[in-house]
């Protein structure tokens, strides 16, 4: 009985290889498609030049476009997709809520507010980095949203609706705060730039962003994989996890801290991209089942590939114009959200 699509042992190893190959191909495609399409072979040659010092006669401008703009951008998109995906996975598991996601719970909005407060309003006087501000904002938002849902009687098993509503309230609040800060402190041009960034945008991404996004996504990934068994133990709720020997509070603090961190870093680089954290874990669960030892890598891979593709779509869907990537993910994500909502309510009793 094949319960999950990729359940059988024999197919496991090729699946890992296949996943990684798909990721590599997506990265190459991401570097090759754009305003001017560059042949695949050229992309590979440029990467060989840059990474292994190979020698091919390729135009320096093309080299620059591929290496400095597109490839770095594709890697950031991949890190961001992986990071948001595993962040959503952790939230869904720990909150026992199939609709949990950093965007829906207001964590991304909190991170935006934190980042904007540092960048525009000059909070911290330059001593605090954008990412640190985003991290603080993300944590404040999470604590506020969880606190609100608890105050609204969300202790019991019917908490799932409460926390989503609290997330809506939290998002509204932090988006309003962000707008307020922008209106007060930013000039018109800054404001336009920030608004564009808030919807999710990878156009400004360069190599320094890679050195931030990729290590953070990787470290958070390792932390989550390390806690895979603990996350599995939450299947029947926090009490059951505790009776299986998991120190629930410590696990929650570490993993939600990690989820908030990766969300905050991604928001500070590319803005608030919605629905990745919601949809990707569900797709991964469909493929490999609910055990986190496999679910976490699958989520990271699918998230990475999904966001590279979303970024490509955002660049080519309207010729000569870049659509915010958040618009693309929302166009895919909202129907998926509706589907999960309908299926989830049918599944519950």
């Amino acid at each position: 009985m094949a319960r999950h699509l990729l359940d059988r042992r024999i197919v496991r190893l090729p699946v890992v290889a296949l996943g990684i190959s798909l990721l590599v191909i997506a990265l190459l495609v991401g570097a090759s498609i754009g305003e001017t399409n560059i042949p695949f072979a050229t992309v590979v040659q440029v990467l060989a030049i840059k990474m292994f010092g190979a020698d091919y006669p390729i135009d320096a401008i093309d080299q620059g476009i591929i290496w400095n703009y597109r490839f770095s951008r594709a890697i950031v998109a991949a890190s961001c997709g992986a990071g948001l995906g595993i962040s959503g996975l952790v939230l869904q598991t720990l909150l026992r809520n199939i609709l949990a996601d950093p965007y829906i719970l207001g964590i991304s909005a909190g991170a935006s507010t934190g980042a904007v407060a540092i960048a525009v309003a000059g909070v911290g006087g330059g001593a605090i980095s954008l990412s640190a501000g985003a991290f603080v904002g993300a944590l404040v938002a999470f604590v506020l949203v969880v606190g609100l849902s608890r105050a609204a009687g969300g202790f019991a098993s019917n908490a799932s609706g409460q926390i989503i509503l609290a997330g809506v309230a939290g998002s509204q609040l932090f988006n309003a705060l962000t707008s307020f800060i922008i209106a007060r402190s930013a000039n018109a041009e800054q404001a336009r730039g920030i608004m564009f960034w808030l919807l999710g945008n990878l156009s400004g991404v360069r190599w320094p962003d890679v050195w931030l996004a990729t290590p953070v996504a990787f470290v958070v990934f390792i932390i989550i994989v390390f806690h895979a068994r603990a996350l599995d133990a939450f299947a029947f709720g926090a009490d059951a996890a505790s009776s299986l020997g998991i120190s629930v509070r410590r696990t929650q603090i570490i993993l939600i801290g990690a989820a908030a961190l990766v969300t905050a870093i991604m928001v500070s680089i590319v803005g608030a991209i919605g629905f990745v954290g919601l949809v990707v874990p569900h797709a991964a669960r469909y493929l490999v089942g609910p055990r986190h030892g496999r679910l976490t890598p699958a989520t990271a891979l699918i998230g990475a590939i999904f966001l590279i593709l979303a970024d490509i779509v955002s660049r080519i869907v309207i010729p000569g114009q870049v659509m915010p990537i958040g618009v693309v993910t929302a166009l895919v994500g909202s129907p998926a959200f509706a589907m999960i909502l309908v299926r989830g309510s049918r599944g519950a009793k």
Partner: protein
Amino acid sequence: MSLAANNLTWCAGRTTIIEDITFEVRKGEIFGLVGPNGSGKSTLLLLLAGLRKPTRGKVTFNGVNLAHINRRETAQQIALVAQQLDTTDRLSVRETVELGRTPWLGPITPFGEADRKIVEDALVETGVAHLAERQWQTLSGGERQRAHIARALAQKADYLILDEPTNHLDIHHQLAILALIKRLPITVILALHDLNQAMGCDRIGIMEGGRLEIVGSPEDTLTAERINRIFEVMAHPIIDPVDGKTILKFALPEEKKPTELK
């Protein structure tokens, strides 16, 4: 080796749910907890498993305050099947039972042959082996209950705490689970509603309104007078002609006939 409650009190906000309970569970015995709905059985079991923090007093395990033992070590010694446990994850029965090995596995220890054997045995013992690959959501209530018990058995703990383990089970599986519990060389603490089943425990504790009314052998404690007072039913002892054992038959007292309850 013993698990004991010392002046255990637990409050939810201002309401005292468990009030000043002191007793000890002896190694190897089957200890039954009985009492009306809401008398605090489940809460007491959660406290004994270390899942609730006592408001006052303490639970001790081999003389050590349970609050000072880390969760992992506790879970290696005490397994719990709580009253209501469900999941939306699409886990199979086997995967659920495998969770019982969690306290014995590190983050990167692989799930070994020995673990697999323990899980297999637990599946067989609780009669769910034929359901091993079935998905949780497709199981009946009784099958879920047995899978949970299998999961607790796979935990290989010396103490097994079961909250109404016979709940949802057909009569065959009720008796099978109780027989299994008796067969196992471990200490079992269980909440029960069927007083005749409670008769099969080594000792029982009777709860009422958050207090432990009495602890002792079923014969000594489950008297007609006490059952009448605590459960508000009349109990008539009947001798089973087959084995000569006492069975309790229950009836509502005269003034509370069902017609008047409406």
